């Protein structure tokens, strides 16, 4: 009942998996949409004669009339809303994906090592996780901002610092049950080193959980940035980000819905795409499915 499969003649495992992913239409459509959004965010602003920081006091809070150049109107500083949302997307998507990626990688490795190794090492590693969980988050953020200044580095550190903890806990749980599985014990009996086992057997079998959890992390990172601005860290105005745009949009919810809708809908779309992509990846790379 071994799960390792010898690659078929002519095609590598990876190619097989990739082909399977391509066949998942929903996932592919999501990839396309996501790529479109990313391109829009990074290239879109060049199409306009102004930036998201150019305030025009004569055109304050104009509504969305879909006329050039202010397609979606302006905010209450007279800055074009669409360009601000796109520029905000650049920052938020970067921090979101990077943050989720870094947190995911750290979490997976940490959890896999802890779960597989077990015993004293696992104990120590998990206790460290608990200490980091328990430490007052606000104080941590304040100290990080002290250390790195109030800028983007501090923001990134503040977000990632505690983000990897839950993936680590989940992966460790999975690693614990995997460690007792026959194929792992067989590998050990066969003389495989622990690091190799972790990397080649444990981690791939946890991947689907991690990918799915990670897809949920991206929007969480983007939104947590607005909470952090409350503490003095975060994307500094006049720079836009989806976090602070959604925040401002919410307080204006009753009077001017489009301030919230534009960034909000984009964020929700990104999330849905990531969802389907994650499912597709899970289906494609599932070791049991080969």
């Amino acid at each position, binding site marked *: 009942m071994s799960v390792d499969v010898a690659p078929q003649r002519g095609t590598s495992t990876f190619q097989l998996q990739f082909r399977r992913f391509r066949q998942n239409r929903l996932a592919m459509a999501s990839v396309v949409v996501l790529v479109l959004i990313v391109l829009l965010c990074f290239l879109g602003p060049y199409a306009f004669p102004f930036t998201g920081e150019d305030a025009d006091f004569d055109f304050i809070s104009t509504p969305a009339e879909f006329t050039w150049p202010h397609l979606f109107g302006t905010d*209450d*500083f007279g800055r074009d809303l669409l360009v601000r949302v796109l520029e905000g997307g650049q920052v938020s998507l970067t921090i979101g994906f990077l943050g989720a990626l870094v947190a995911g990688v750290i979490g997976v490795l940490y959890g896999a090592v802890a779960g597989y190794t077990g015993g004293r090492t696992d104990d120590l590693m998990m206790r460290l996780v608990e200490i980091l969980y328990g430490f007052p988050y606000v104080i941590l953020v*304040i100290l990080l901002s002290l250390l790195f200044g109030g800028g983007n580095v501090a923001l990134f550190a503040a977000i990632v610092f505690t983000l990897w903890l839950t993936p680590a806990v989940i992966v460790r749980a999975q690693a614990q049950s995997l460690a007792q599985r026959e194929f792992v014990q067989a590998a050990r009996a066969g003389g495989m080193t622990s690091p190799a086992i972790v990397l080649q057997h444990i981690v791939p079998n946890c991947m689907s959980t991690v990918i799915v959890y990670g897809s949920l992390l991206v929007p969480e990172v983007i939104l947590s940035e607005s909470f952090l601005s409350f503490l*003095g860290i975060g994307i*500094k*105005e*006049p720079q836009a980000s989806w976090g602070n745009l959604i925040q401002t949009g919410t*307080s204006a919810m*009753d*009077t001017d819905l489009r301030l919230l809708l534009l960034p909000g809908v984009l964020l929700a779309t990104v999330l849905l795409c990531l969802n389907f992509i994650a499912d597709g990846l899970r289906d494609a790379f599932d070791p049991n499915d080969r």
Partner: protein
Amino acid sequence: MIGKASRVARWLAGAAMALALAAGPGMADAVLDRGIGSEWSSLDPQVNFDAAAGWILMDAYEGLVTYGPGGGVQPGQAESWDVSEDGKTYTFHLREGLKWSNGDPVTAQEFVDSVYRTLDPATVSEKGYYFYSVVKIKGAEAIANGEAKDASGLGVTAPDDRTVVIEMETPAPHLLNIMGAFQIPPLHGPSYAANGAAGFVDPAKVVTNGPYTITEVVPQSHVLLTKNPNYWDAANVKIEQVKYHVTEDVATEFKRFQAGEIDITYDVPVNQLEALKASMPDALKVTPSTETTFYSFNLTKPELQDINVRTALSLAINRELLQDKIVKGGAIPAYSFAGGFDPSYDGPMMPGFELSQPDREAKAKELMAAAGFGPDNPLKVSIVTTVAEDRIRLAQGVALMWKQVLGVQASVEPMERKAWLDAFYAGTWDVFADNLVGDFAGAETFLAYMRPSADAGYHWVKPEYDAQMDVAATMPDAASRNVELAKAEKILLDDVIFAPLAKEPLRRLVSPKVKGYVPSVTDYINSQFLTLEP
């Protein structure tokens, strides 16, 4: 077909409405519900230091004087008072038959005890400065510093049970403004001796002398006050119960107002202001307060040591546009520091006030160029502000204006409150988004604060200012005092150590059921002067 569908629809609608009505919460109409924003600091009358606690205490206790509708001084526990010739001694005559809520008589000594307890280091109160800084009561500072160990040297005495005498080092016409319950409620001897400070928070033990007593306290939620039958003016107290709610989130508070759960709010969502002016013009009250906002310049920074640069920065700000279009919070543009709070004070305006805004901007450009800054040599400044939404918008607006008019590169650095305070004293700022809340509605409280001796953080060296303020302090009556204070303010404004920006407003929503609500600059709205119509 259609008939049947509409019948069903109507039935469904009726059922839904019946359900809604049945499930809807019924509000008790004899209770006035007021929002107080963040939780009160303390219900200990000698320790509390914020406005929220102030309202609760002003309903529960009464000082020598009280503040009527509009905030004017009225007789409180004292029915009359005399002032000495030199303005340094006030003699208050208490009413006859004053009682605490438990029936005990109110005696003059209890006022003395209250002041002493506020000053006593053992109480760890931050309000002591009222008695040796805002006014200079004899012996007060010695007690606060721990040099005097008892009340024997204190300038507050009770020669008999119904007389309180206050002696000051220098005359202070504004003394009456701080003789209310917020600063000097009497201290009930027996219950304090029995329960200590814990008694103030316990509805079963607390004893009050004001229009209401405290009947329920739920931390972080609310305080319930019930009418005190032993109050001397109980016959005129119309509202039976007052409930003060903690309302941290202004949007939630607004919804509760709409649902009828709250009758007087603490604040109004700023982005709703325009809409509310149209839809609820009677309920919305946007009125001036005693808070002024100004942007201080760091006088240790070489670029800002040139008065031309500071003047240019101050002139380049379009204060009306800032408030009307950018911050939109209802604040009033200000061109002076201490004026506009007291109608009898006629103060000077900042340099450049007399020009039109386009002229000011032109002059600003000239001054800036003369100082050597321009597009190829832009001035770079950091603006340090707190993270509150309106403060950030203010800073952004100012930064934008400086950029557009003068080409200045200003970065906005929001900080959480403690870090912001810390930054001030550390000097790690170029422009500080400053604000000051006056202790009473007069010029002196603001001008006294700017004394170089008062706060070293400004690094302002001006002996003439201190000297002029000393001259003003010796004036026994308000009119002559105001004249001298105006001279001091001129010295202050001419040095342009800050750019005055605005007078912050009080923004309230008051339900039409509440009658008798008169806004006051000091924000004293005692519930005893209000009535509630069903």
